[in-house]
């Protein structure tokens, strides 16, 4: 009887103690940009198989949607956004401490073609191939203005409008061909895979695993660098586990996973200071 009482007491005391050891069933909830779907699932797999306890569960959606959910009080331990604007929205909503934000990866834009378009061959990354997209008759799908991919695409179009060979006419023609503004980058990708759209602006990383779609690189002087910040939420219930997952992403192993999915990690070094408290990120 006494033993039973002791067990009950122990059972009650466990979770109440602030820095209690992480239990086997501890779950880290990660809100992550849709473009991170594949890479984060693989990262979580190698994170968990590295002898660590607990699970990582994901909520993948457009970053703006995740920021909106955080604003309305959704429970999460980590937020990984596809741009700094939505991370700032989460900071403004009081869910993220400004100091905890770190850039963990970068990405670039790429043109993906629909299944039946462009005679199923990759186009050369030249301005001429881009010009074709502004001719009437093409169906182009992009991200909505609120979505990071939509923001980046508008910046690419602004760059193109400044380019002497493309110019404002290119942007106007391109925009006239837009038939749908999707809620996240995966929506653009699925419209291309279904063959409903001729072309779409996606992240380079999105096309890594999708070998059946022809693609075209955007010339470097027109392209943008998509910044992916990550942070723990202020009210994380599993701060240690969550920090361990972030640390893993900054480790060499984590970087290898990110790079195998088409993300680059060199931008971590370009933003000194931000990653300084992660010992194993020094290599970048």
């Amino acid at each position, binding site marked *: 009887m006494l033993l039973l009482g002791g067990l009950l007491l122990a059972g009650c005391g466990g979770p109440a103690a602030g820095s209690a050891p992480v239990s086997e069933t501890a779950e880290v909830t990660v809100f992550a940009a849709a473009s991170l779907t594949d890479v984060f699932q693989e990262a979580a797999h190698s994170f968990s198989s590295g002898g660590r306890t607990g699970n990582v569960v994901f909520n993948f959606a457009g970053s703006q949607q995740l920021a909106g959910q955080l604003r309305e009080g959704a429970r999460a331990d980590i937020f990984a956004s596809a741009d700094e604007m939505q991370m700032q929205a989460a900071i403004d909503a009081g869910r993220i401490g400004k100091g905890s934000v770190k850039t963990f990866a970068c990405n670039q834009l790429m043109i993906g073609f629909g299944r039946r378009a462009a005679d199923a061959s990759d186009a050369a990354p030249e301005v001429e191939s881009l010009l074709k997209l502004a001719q009437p008759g093409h169906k182009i799908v992009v991200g909505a203005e609120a979505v990071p991919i939509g923001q980046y695409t508008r910046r690419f179009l602004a760059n193109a409008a400044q380019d002497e060979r493309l110019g404002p006419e290119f942007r106007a023609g391109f925009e006239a061909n837009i038939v749908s503004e999707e*809620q996240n980058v995966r929506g653009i990708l699925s*419209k291309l895979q279904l063959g*409903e759209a001729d072309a779409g602006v996606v992240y380079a990383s999105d096309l890594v695993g999708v070998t059946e779609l022809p693609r075209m690189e955007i010339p470097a002087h027109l392209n943008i660098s998509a910044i992916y910040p990550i942070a723990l939420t202020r009210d994380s219930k599993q701060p240690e586990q969550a920090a361990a997952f972030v640390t893993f992403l900054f480790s060499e192993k984590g970087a290898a996973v990110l790079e195998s999915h088409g993300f680059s990690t060199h931008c971590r070094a370009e933003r000194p200071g931000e990653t300084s408290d992660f010992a194993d990120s020094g290599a970048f």
Partner: protein
Amino acid sequence: MRTTEAAEAMRIPVDRAGGGRRASRRLTRPGLAPFWSAVPMILFLALPLLALIWRTDLADVGTHLAQPVARRAIVLSLWTSATATLLTVLLGTPLALLMTRRQFRGRRALDTLIDLPTVLPPAVAGLALLMAFGRRGMLGQGLSVAGIEIAFTSLAVILAQLFVASPYYIRAAIGGLSRSAVELEEAAALDGADGRQIFRFVTVPLARASLLGGLVMTWARALGDFGATILFAGNYPGRTQTMPLAIYIGFELDLDVALALSVVLMATAFAILLLVKWLLGRTD
């Protein structure tokens, strides 16, 4: 009696107790229905709707609705749902007549087919429409060769609405038409009325309440569709971005516009249901 049966056929709850004088006599077991036991459910149904109104700045609803995004969505929603409703009457009435005036093999299967879109997840409906009318779809492929492409157009919005909403009218019409007396139609035929006259002066007036009720339900469902539309028609302001889609985007871009549109849709739905109940109650 006819009213409640018609309502049941349409799955619209009619206030049996309050409506008929005969029915009120059945209310003699108050002990079985203590008021407090119903409170949790009433609160659960009412609270989100009240919260929506509470969070909305009602004085500013007009200004938010005047914004181009909201205005275009309202105009598009109104004309596409009106077209879908008109098509429902033109195409659905013959089907309802077939179901009530003829016995044939496969009638039960057809009856199930009519109900299917109302229980299918709208996303499934959207995907199915893409598989049929999309560029690489069963029918869409041929249409595409002929130069007709439906996906990403307002026509796609109408087709999506027609698919998910027409069953409500057809179901109600079957209910109403099966109860309008065949003997009266036969008597009219004996008196020399032709088919069209019988339909116009006997069949339709007898089933009028059910037909109108079903029509309003179809319109409301068409107005509210989200899943089928965003999958099949995409999202483009003024062309395929209906009110529900604009609310979804607005949640991320401008919550106030989303709230204003939500309140309008909620008020519309409330008015529609009241109208249906009044229409059905009037025939007593």
